[in-house]
């Protein structure tokens, strides 16, 4: 049975475990589900992955140059396009927006609030924001001026939301990987931490220092060779890592954090609509990354979504917002550790044979 989701959290490198096998090939990094079958060294007789992330559709010819303002305009228009699709999917259901207060969920909420259908859903009691107290601290002006006065708010409770068949859960998951990858490490190179536009090769000494076996660098080099275009910069390299290995996990989160038994909707957008994994954003992500846009640091890659938010809220100071990590205080219980391709699942520790 092929693996669809594998939670490496708290898994041990015990003898004959899957994680120990992975470590022997690529080092101690968390074992990902290989979306594009990039990892040649994994023996398919021992382990196979089942990808459910929508296949990207893109055209890498005749794209505007990386510094063209048309990229920003296109990015903004995607919000309206995808918001429209959310309302179509939500017909007859209640929309629950998972709002952390961070950049991605805020931009999703803004897109939905700008849509013509918003008032109709709100007035009929079919629009709520699911949040935590920490969400308020992330963006207090928006909360007190827009959310609190007009939208019903409920505490985050994955069980309640996922087990209610009349709710469409809308998330901003994977927004961090549309442009670049906010998991890119921050380190000094030639006296600066602004490294995103530097050649990807500067990563090798850094990664070799983390994993002295060289296996982790081997992992990076192997997957970069298989990107749909030349990976030149650090920003592109980490963007590709995000595309290849992050989304599959994120698609499962609301399902593994709740005790919902039926996992047949994990690969669809019928129960959980992942705004940034929709086809329009996926296409944009691949095409924009291919022109190697100029970014320097962690904050700079968030410029487009921040500008989209400020365009609506007019809070200019938001452009200087720093990350608060309020999501780390969210109550999340793990109910499932492994999901297989047929939707069956297990909650077990480390006895997974390879």
């Amino acid at each position, binding site marked *: 049975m092929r693996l669809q989701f594998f*939670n490496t*959290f*708290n898994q041990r490198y015990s003898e004959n475990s899957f994680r120990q096998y992975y470590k022997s090939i690529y080092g101690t990094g968390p074992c990902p589900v290989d979306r594009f079958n990039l990892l040649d060294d994994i023996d398919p007789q021992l382990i196979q992955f089942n990808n459910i992330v929508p296949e990207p559709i893109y055209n890498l010819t005749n794209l505007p140059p990386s510094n063209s303002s048309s990229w920003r305009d296109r990015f903004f228009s995607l919000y309206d396009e995808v918001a429209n699709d959310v309302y179509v999917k939500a017909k007859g259901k209640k929309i629950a927006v998972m709002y952390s207060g961070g950049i991605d969920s805020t931009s999703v909420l803004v897109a939905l609030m700008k849509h013509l259908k918003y008032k109709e859903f709100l007035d009929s009691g079919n629009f709520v924001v699911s949040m*935590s*107290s920490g969400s308020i601290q992330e963006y207090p002006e928006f909360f*007190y001026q827009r959310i*609190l*006065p007009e939208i019903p*708010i*409920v*505490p*985050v*409770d994955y069980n309640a939301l996922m087990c209610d068949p009349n709710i469409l859960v809308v998330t901003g998951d994977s927004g961090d990987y549309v442009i670049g990858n906010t998991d890119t490490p921050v380190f000094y190179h030639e006296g600066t931490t602004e490294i995103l536009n530097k050649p990807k090769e500067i990563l090798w000494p850094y990664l070799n220092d983390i994993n002295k076996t060289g296996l982790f660098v081997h992992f990076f080099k192997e997957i970069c060779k298989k990107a749909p275009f030349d990976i030149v910069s650090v920003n592109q390299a980490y963007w590709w890592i995000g595309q290849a290995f992050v989304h599959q996990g994120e698609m499962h989160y609301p399902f593994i954090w709740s005790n919902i038994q039926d996992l047949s909707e994990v690969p669809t957008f019928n129960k959980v609509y992942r705004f940034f994994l929709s086809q329009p954003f996926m296409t944009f992500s691949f095409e924009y990354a291919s022109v190697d846009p100029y970014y320097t640091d962690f904050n700079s890659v968030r410029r487009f979504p921040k500008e989209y938010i400020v365009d609506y809220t007019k809070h200019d100071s938001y452009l200087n917002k720093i990350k608060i990590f309020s999501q780390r*205080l969210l*109550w*999340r*219980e*793990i*109910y499932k*550790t492994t999901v297989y391709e047929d939707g069956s699942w297990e*909650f*077990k*520790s480390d006895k997974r044979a390879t």
Partner: protein
Amino acid sequence: MTTAKAIIPKPVTTTDTYIRMLVFNPTQHVVWVCQEPYPVQNIIRRIPVCVGDVDFKLYHGPSPKHEIPSGWYHEFLKYNLVKPDGTETLSLAPVPTEYVTPIRLVRAKCYALVGLWNLIKGQTEKLDVHNNPLVSEHVTIEEATIIYADIFNIPRAQARVLAQFKKDELMNRLKKLKLIELEIETKIANCLTEEQVIEYYKLQTIRLCSTQPLDLGWILDPKL
């Protein structure tokens, strides 16, 4: 005719050792211990009596290192520590063969339970559930509304929504944590084998998002 003697409590001194214990009923072997630093300031905590087959006992007196030169905790780990009646007594005896498995099972249950309680307590602290004023039944939504309206400078109606949201959030978390606690102790108390306890314990540490749980295997078979 006998004369009743008055029981005079022994004065507490700061140099005494104060150990709470659970003993296995049939043999009085100690299966769980908790040493308090200073008895006058003892911490009210849950003791895993709900595992069954155990009795609560207390050692209160001078450090037992003269009585047990090899170390009372060392002997406890080796399953040799026995707690007879009387607060200042401890003794040593090997576990009768027929009780080895039952005693290990009870010890596994005690430490699994306490380990998981500690993880729940960690979550309770992280989520600010325990001591947050809004959890108190003495603080009403109306009273919190007045405070929020004043400090955040928002209309009363909005302040009420905010107060209700925050209270709901806390009560929701509190309820979930209490239900987990109830589920865990019921399940562990009803485990029939040591292996069942260890397996269940491992799974629950994952469920409770622990990265460094207590090593139950070491407690049961310490490398001494």
